[in-house]
């Protein structure tokens, strides 16, 4: 069977801030799209298909492409909308990968975005669980009690964090350090939202506790922003730019929802820190990419971590070390920009979270690192291969993409 190599040839971002009130959704996304075209040196006429997504409950617009995609050069082109919650951006990038690798399209524009300030972001997240909440009330559950069960404002992440810490030996000091790693990296990234150069763990430890063990300093902000990425065939990529970033493989894996709601939770996902689906997706992606030893072959990682503990947890679940080893690796300094396996050089989701865009920004950051275009946050070591991850749903969906400076097939 014939296969086609897929490469990233351009990346574009809009500004990432908490409130963009000077533009509407379509206009904000245009900023990323137009920056992306410029980056790749392409025009809309060069694009064969478009793949888009966001998490629509945040904006209250159903399939916003219908009204907005004209602003992104979609007129008359095949357009596919993919939405999978927190993993949306990653799923959109996967869609772009398959669109090209199928041989059906040469050049595909991937777009992911969120304009949270148009809606009420807490309410946006609540709509994940309102159906289950309604069912619980019907069973005679007190709303306040349900809120506590759901983990309050920080949701299921607190259970996950507590459980992860217990299993791995990760301490609250480690969480503080993760925030420092990310927010100081973010300070070097012009497209990040929360930039905190010179942040110290002590400062993080002084932020207000939301619910044990999560403090405000451990949690992502709500961001307005968009990301666009142009992918094309390996052949075209070589003609366009010197150093394309090849997407070697994409894989996702779903488990049962573990929202601890009315429908209960099933088997492997009983403990939300286990995340077996992340391990499975990573294994599938590494296998397809021909990676046998990810710990040594991967040069940079962008795990999806809106909460501090997740950077460490997903580092482990991406098979970059054994379970429970990540806190010590963080302490060793290996995750820093100049380390052996830098993690979240972009600043990660904990610094910038335009929900729908976040998982694509993991892919685009790895691509930029491979292309050597990451600017001040370019990692010290030479980057040949990197892994980009996305996480979402009711802690039950994981997406993984592996990128490289050399193609998979030719």
């Amino acid at each position: 069977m014939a296969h086609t190599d897929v490469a990233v040839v351009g990346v574009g971002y809009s500004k990432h801030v908490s409130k963009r009130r000077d533009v509407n959704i379509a206009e904000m996304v245009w900023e990323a799209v137009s920056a992306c075209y410029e980056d790749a040196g392409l025009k809309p006429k060069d694009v064969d298909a478009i793949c888009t997504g966001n998490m629509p409950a945040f904006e209250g617009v159903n399939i916003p492409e219908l009204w907005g995609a004209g602003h992104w050069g979609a007129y008359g082109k095949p357009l596919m909308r993919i939405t999978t919650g927190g993993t949306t951006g990653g799923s959109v990038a996967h869609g772009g990968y398959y669109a090209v690798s199928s041989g059906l399209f040469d050049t595909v524009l991937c777009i992911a975005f969120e304009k949270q300030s148009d809606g009420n972001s807490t309410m946006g997240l609540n709509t994940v669980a309102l159906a289950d909440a309604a069912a619980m009330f019907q069973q005679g559950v007190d709303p306040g009690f349900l809120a506590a069960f759901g983990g309050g404002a920080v949701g299921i992440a607190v259970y996950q964090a507590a459980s992860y810490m217990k299993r791995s030996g990760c301490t609250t000091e480690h969480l503080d350090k993760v925030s420092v790693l990310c927010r100081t990296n973010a300070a070097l990234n012009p497209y990040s939202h929360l930039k905190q150069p010179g942040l110290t763990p002590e400062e993080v430890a002084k932020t207000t506790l939301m619910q044990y063990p999560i403090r405000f300093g451990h949690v992502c902000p709500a961001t307005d922003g968009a990301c666009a990425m142009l992918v094309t065939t390996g052949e075209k990529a070589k003609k366009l730019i010197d150093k394309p970033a090849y997407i070697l493989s994409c894989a996702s894996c779903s488990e049962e929802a573990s929202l601890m709601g009315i429908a209960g939770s099933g088997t492997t996902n009983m403990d939300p820190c286990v995340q077996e689906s992340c391990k499975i997706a990573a294994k599938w992606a590494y296998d397809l990419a021909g990676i046998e030893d990810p710990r040594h072959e991967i040069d940079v990682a962008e795990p999806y971590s809106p909460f501090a503990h997740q950077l460490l947890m997903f580092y482990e679940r991406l098979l970059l070390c054994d379970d429970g080893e990540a806190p010590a690796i963080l302490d060793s300094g290996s995750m820093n920009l100049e380390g052996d396996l830098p993690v979240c050089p972009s600043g990660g989701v904990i610094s910038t979270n335009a929900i729908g865009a976040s998982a694509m920004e993991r892919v685009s950051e790895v691509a930029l690192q491979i292309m050597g275009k990451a600017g001040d946050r370019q990692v010290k070591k030479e980057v040949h291969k990197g892994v980009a991850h996305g996480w979402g749903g009711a802690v039950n969906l994981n997406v993984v993409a592996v990128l490289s400076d050399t193609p998979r097939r030719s």
Partner: protein
Amino acid sequence: MGSGIDIGQVPKVSIPINPTFGWSVGNWMEYFFDGIKEGKLRASKCPACGRVFLPPRMVCERCFAKCEDWVKLPETGTVQSFTTAHVKVGADGELEDLSQPEIIVLVKQDGADTCVAARLEGESASVGMKVKAVLDPSAENFLDMLAGYRPAE
């Protein structure tokens, strides 16, 4: 393999919460609404192909050019299509009968290349009919400042 337990009628639940939104209109639509406040109909124009957008768009979907040119359009336009509405969508999403039918028109303002959907003040409509915009700069809701159209004499 079992086919589950017979539970009779499947229960339904609901929750009385309506998430709210506030969509910033962006500078192009802002300039449009500011214009109506002064009694002007402002449309954006594509510098590449000359397409004129009313309501204004920031980007021309055909050329991907930023529409930084503006034109002031006359109040007159032509009906492109229309429908006599016997119903409207109620808050619950069902089609409710109207006591009085109303006419919804799709109007291309003279000089514009795109259309506005609005109410027609009048008894009947036809495609090609000339109409005049009814502006209400003092409308409480800025979306109602372009109140509708009426037949042009």
